[in-house]
């Protein structure tokens, strides 16, 4: 279908609203962030004094920032690995012909529909060190329960599990769709050749799922890097002793609690570069192994 516009102006008018939105909410603020990252900003007047790369030097030489970067890497890797593997296992289970399978599927997808604040509150309540259900159950069965909020490693574990759970529904939907697109004849043919189920999965199904897996790898990494602010804020506020202080949370603290906009803008610029690099790397290396049928 080859449609043609009657003149040259109408197409521009039609895309104008989205251009305006992108300009107002994306490009202009980004430009401002870039400018502020090179300035010291008076929060009350907004007056910016050019300080060159001062903010970046402060950041990169600060141990706190490197610590946050480390936490972010661990958090992202663990969250993505945990969520993808669990989601794949669940999607395989949910891909069977069972009575009431619709219900199971809905239940699996459920967590994705929750807002970060609600999801965070659920996990914070579960692991509350004195009144949480998990704490209570552990005490009832094992006899002791750790103080999740005082032990940095455990607190990090709790937010990783919470973030992975939050992603689960999204991942299950995509894996399920991917699995349903895998032709049954292929698997059957392999079965006829005498391949056991495990081998059928690795040799036939999994390669066919690789585009989906790759897509999820990227979206999940982006989520774990960028969008976990809500969860972290509700569950740990970056604590204890900054054990869960991922980069976005540190940015929030510096920008919105300490009101140091120059420093916070520098962090957002660095984050942008980081994520761009991450995505390019993933397309370069992981992309090669993807098998588009």
């Amino acid at each position: 279908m080859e449609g043609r516009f009657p003149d040259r102006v109408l197409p521009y008018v039609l895309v104008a609203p989205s251009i305006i939105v992108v300009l107002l909410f994306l490009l202009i603020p980004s430009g401002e962030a870039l400018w502020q990252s090179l300035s010291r900003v008076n929060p009350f007047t907004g007056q910016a004094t050019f300080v060159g790369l001062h903010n970046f030097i402060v950041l990169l030489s600060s141990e706190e920032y490197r610590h946050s970067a480390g936490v972010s890497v661990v958090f992202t890797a663990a969250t993505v690995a945990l969520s993808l593997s669990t989601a794949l296992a669940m999607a395989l289970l949910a891909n069977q012909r069972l009575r009431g399978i619709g219900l199971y599927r809905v239940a699996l997808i459920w967590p994705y529909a929750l807002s970060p604040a609600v999801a965070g509150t659920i996990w914070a309540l579960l692991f509350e060190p004195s009144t949480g259900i998990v704490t209570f159950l552990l005490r009832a069965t094992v006899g002791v329960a750790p103080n999740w909020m005082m032990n940095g490693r455990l607190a990090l574990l709790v937010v990783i599990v919470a973030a992975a759970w939050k992603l689960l529904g999204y991942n299950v939907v995509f894996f399920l769709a991917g699995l349903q697109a895998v032709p049954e004849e292929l698997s059957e043919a392999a079965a006829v050749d005498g391949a056991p189920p495990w081998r059928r999965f690795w040799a036939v199904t999994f390669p066919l799922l690789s585009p989906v897996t790759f897509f999820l790898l990227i979206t999940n990494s982006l989520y774990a890097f960028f969008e976990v602010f809500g969860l972290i804020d509700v569950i740990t506020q970056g604590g204890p002793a900054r054990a869960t202080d991922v980069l976005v949370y540190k940015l929030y603290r510096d920008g919105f609690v300490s009101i140091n906009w120059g420093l916070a803008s520098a962090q957002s610029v660095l984050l942008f570069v980081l994520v761009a690099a991450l995505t390019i790397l993933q397309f370069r290396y992981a992309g090669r192994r993807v098998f588009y049928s």
Partner: protein
Amino acid sequence: MRRYGVAVTLIVVFALVIPGGWVQAQGTVKITLWHAMGGARYEAITKGIAEGFNRTYPSYTLEPLFTGSYAETLTKAIAAIRAGNPPHIVQVYEVGTQTMIDSGAIIPVTDLVKPGEINFNDYIDPILKYYTVRGKLYSMPFNSSTAILYYNKDIFRKAGLDPDRPPQTFDELEQMGRQIIRSGAARGAVTLGWPAWIFEQMFAYHNKLYANNENGRTARATKVLFDQPFGVYLASRWAAWAKEGLLVYGGREYAPNRAFLAGEVAMLMQSTSQVSTIERGAQFAVGTAFLPRIPGQPRGKSVIGGASLWVLKGRGRSPAELAAIVALFKYLNQPQQTAQWHKDTGYFPATQSAVKLLEAEGWFATHPNFLTAFKQIQTGPDTGATRGVLLGNFVQIRDITDTMLERVFSGRMTPADAVRVGAEEANKVLTEYNQAYK
């Protein structure tokens, strides 16, 4: 058609952009108040104060708006100041005091209220002194609190302790705490609400300066002093409590209330603003007492926390608006209003006449827990160390000391190391601040 399309788009865009406030009923003078009072305190502001004020002054309308936590309220106010459309009044917590003074965006209360309009000498001395900086009263005292010790009388009884004799010193707290845990009456002895603030309290309570230049009151502070021997000593005592299981860390701000209310911990050091909330939420007899002292240390007194009301300039205020603001301050200053605010929340009755009114009503006799903090803040000398600390970017320094204490409690750093690192970080913040606001 095309031309109409553009027009329609523009109209829609503008309709979305124009704030509703532009189209509003004329006649009354509207003043807005941004505040951070959640829980029982929300009702006290919206129902109690705003409705009462609007009824008393039909020509004025006070519009209170809950804008989240103290930190969020401050951030939103600053964004609004930059945008040129801030609220008339914003409630800022005590750590924002220095920042607000330096902002250039406020009208000091001294400049706004004409002499004789409000009798400021009626205010309880420590409250007035906290918000008076170098002779000028900058903000209107509103919700002032301090930290006290809450304890669970039922747990004390179960542990074989006298429920009417709470610990008065750190040593007693340790002994009683051990007995409580040994007897199985509770899992932990004590937890701290707003840990960094309790840490600050302990300095004033033992007459120790927290920052140089008399706690930042003779000139802007350039260095914190919590890495002095007292700070290290205090951190070590707490570290020992945590190691022994006496101290249960429950998080920052109000989160530790949960462990106390659940009967998991016998004692809680927390703001007086929670008296009402805790008494309502507890299914046990709640006792309150002065903060425990460290034996052998000099006596100071606990310091003011909470928040005050700041008048923002915006792009200039009309005389009618200024009159409305002064009217509100006068209204809040009335003994009945001050007393009611105290009853609803547990914050200090800020004026002497309100205290007299409450005494005449017999309020304290039936609500002894509401009296504890008030007595505590009036016992002890008035020195530079007990007037409260003013620091540039105190909000960030609070976060630094909270983190420092988390390192101490979890044993990730020795108290001496944690305190040294914390002070270094805090000093860096002060240096940056003092460079930015010359």
